[in-house]
């Protein structure tokens, strides 16, 4: 029953996100599959924000009280959304069928792993899920609870856990891992539909297969051997980057609006999200300047507002802020940092050949990169540079304990880059 209710909640979040995008006609030219895949992330962000606002206003977290506004919204816009066309039947060849079957096996395995045991990774229960549990037991977000647990991480992921507990009716740190599986599934679908849109179904299946079978994704999707927020962050970064590319293509203000919301959510997953949304923000501002589309700037308010609000909330309630000590430059530390980072990049057990191929293809075609790849490269390298600077100068961070997780945030974009380069440089035959 708990498993069923958790899947139902995940479906409900996805439905809310899908509905908002469709009702607002925010992605007019995108496939329903892409909208469904990003609907989950939007739903998670929206419902977590709803819980946060209710807590701030002193409103009850009664499940009916939480669902009721959505029933009204859905009833109001029902007709607008339900002009869905039935998808065309796609004929798949033998290879595609086999790859699809293998991907289904991987997804089944991650569900099996997620449900096999309670959460064991210390980071997950000591902080993220402790907050989920505390909010559920307290029935609200209490500043003294946040002071007790520590408020170094924003609340979206913890509130996602709380929402599952609210639906299930008790704390269950096993079924909550299904939300990680959902991020894995919807990331794969977002990746698939993004490639399919440009290069067709067969190539999308092949490249998605390579993404889905990366061991680090499989582990985070089910067994969750590392941080609970890293796979969600990878998902949100990928979706934000895809929306950015779409905005570059269309200069559509509605897409920028959706992108801004996603940037706001991404920044509030964990601190690394704030860095990358700053990079994307700069790229958006540059584009607005180039296009002289100055009326678009106000839309970025939806990105800035949640970040400001969270920091004001922390300030008002004197919540503990992480104060880091800073290292001075050290040659030994620099060598150690780069050594560990390269060691992880060539770690085939974790990444298959992803990062090796990524850097090799980039170097090979460095002089003549397609525009899309240039933008993605700026994003990936800027984030890698930030990570490197943190390792070099901030006390308490070293690549050995965290670089694997940081690479996970960027891995879908790296895979997307490889997929584009291989097709654009005509390495592979044309797939139909």
């Amino acid at each position, binding site marked *: 029953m708990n498993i069923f209710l958790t899947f139902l909640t995940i479906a409900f979040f996805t439905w809310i996100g899908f509905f908002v995008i469709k009702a607002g006609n925010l992605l007019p030219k995108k496939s329903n599959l892409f909208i469904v895949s990003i609907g989950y992330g939007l739903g998670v962000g929206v419902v977590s924000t709803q819980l946060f606002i209710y807590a701030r206003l002193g409103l009850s977290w009664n499940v009916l009280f939480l669902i009721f506004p959505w029933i009204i919204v859905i009833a109001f816009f029902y007709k607008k959304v339900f002009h869905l066309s039935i998808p065309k039947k796609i004929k798949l060849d033998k290879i595609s069928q086999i790859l699809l079957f293998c991907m289904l096996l991987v997804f089944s395995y991650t569900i099996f792993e997620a449900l096999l045991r309670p959460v064991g990774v210390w980071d997950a229960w*000591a902080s993220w899920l402790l907050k989920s*549990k505390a909010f559920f*037991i307290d029935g609200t977000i209490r500043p003294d609870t946040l002071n007790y647990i520590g408020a170094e991480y924003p609340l979206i992921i913890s509130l996602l856990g709380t929402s599952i507990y609210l639906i299930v009716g008790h704390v269950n740190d096993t079924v909550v891992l299904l939300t990680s599986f959902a991020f894995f599934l919807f990331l794969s679908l977002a990746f698939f539909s993004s490639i399919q849109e440009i290069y067709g179904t067969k190539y999308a299946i092949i490249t998605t297969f390579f993404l889905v079978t990366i061991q680090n994704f499989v582990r985070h999707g089910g067994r969750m051997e590392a941080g609970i927020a890293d796979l969600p962050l990878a998902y949100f970064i990928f979706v934000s980057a895809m929306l950015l590319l779409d905005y570059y293509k269309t200069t559509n203000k509605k897409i920028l609006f959706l992108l801004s919301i996603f940037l706001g959510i991404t920044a509030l997953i964990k601190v690394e999200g704030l860095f990358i949304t700053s990079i994307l923000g700069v790229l958006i501002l540059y584009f607005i300047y180039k296009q002289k589309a100055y009326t678009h700037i106000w839309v970025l308010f939806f990105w800035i507002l949640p970040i400001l609000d969270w920091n004001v909330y922390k300030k008002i309630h004197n919540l503990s802020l992480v104060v880091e000590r800073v290292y001075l430059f050290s040659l030994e530390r620099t060598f150690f940092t780069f050594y560990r980072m390269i060691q992880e990049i060539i770690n085939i057990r974790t990444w298959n050949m992803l990062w090796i191929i990524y850097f090799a293809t980039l170097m090979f075609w460095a002089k003549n990169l397609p525009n899309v790849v240039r933008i993605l490269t700026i994003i990936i390298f800027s984030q890698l540079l930030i990570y490197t600077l943190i390792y070099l100068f901030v006390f308490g961070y070293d690549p050995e304990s965290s670089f694997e997780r940081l690479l996970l945030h960027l891995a879908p974009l790296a895979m997307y880059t490889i997929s584009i380069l291989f097709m654009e440089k005509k390495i592979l035959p044309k797939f139909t």
Partner: protein
Amino acid sequence: MVFIHSEITNWYFLTDSQKRYKIFGDLYTFVTFIDQHTPPETTVLIVAENGFPYLLARYYIYPKKVVFLPKNEYISESKQLSYDYVASYSFPLDLSQYGLVSSFTDKNTSKSGYLYKKR
């Protein structure tokens, strides 16, 4: 397939408590022991060699609160302790203002846990 088979045989047939014991070992016994022997809405001071028992207790016995004191600092501070309960992991404490409420010894690891209440 062999890996999946071993995962099933190692985990699937265990109860929820057995699975948690398999993950956390006698520390799980320690935190459930504290939970069982303390009233709701209490604060427990945990004295241990490292912070892991404290972190685990913080998660498992919430909404009861826990505070951590490293073993090497407890001797100097033991006279001023103001908590209703003090728990120690793997070694007994000598506290004049506190009486022993209960103790346990894990069957598999022989590690002990002690719970004291203020007199």
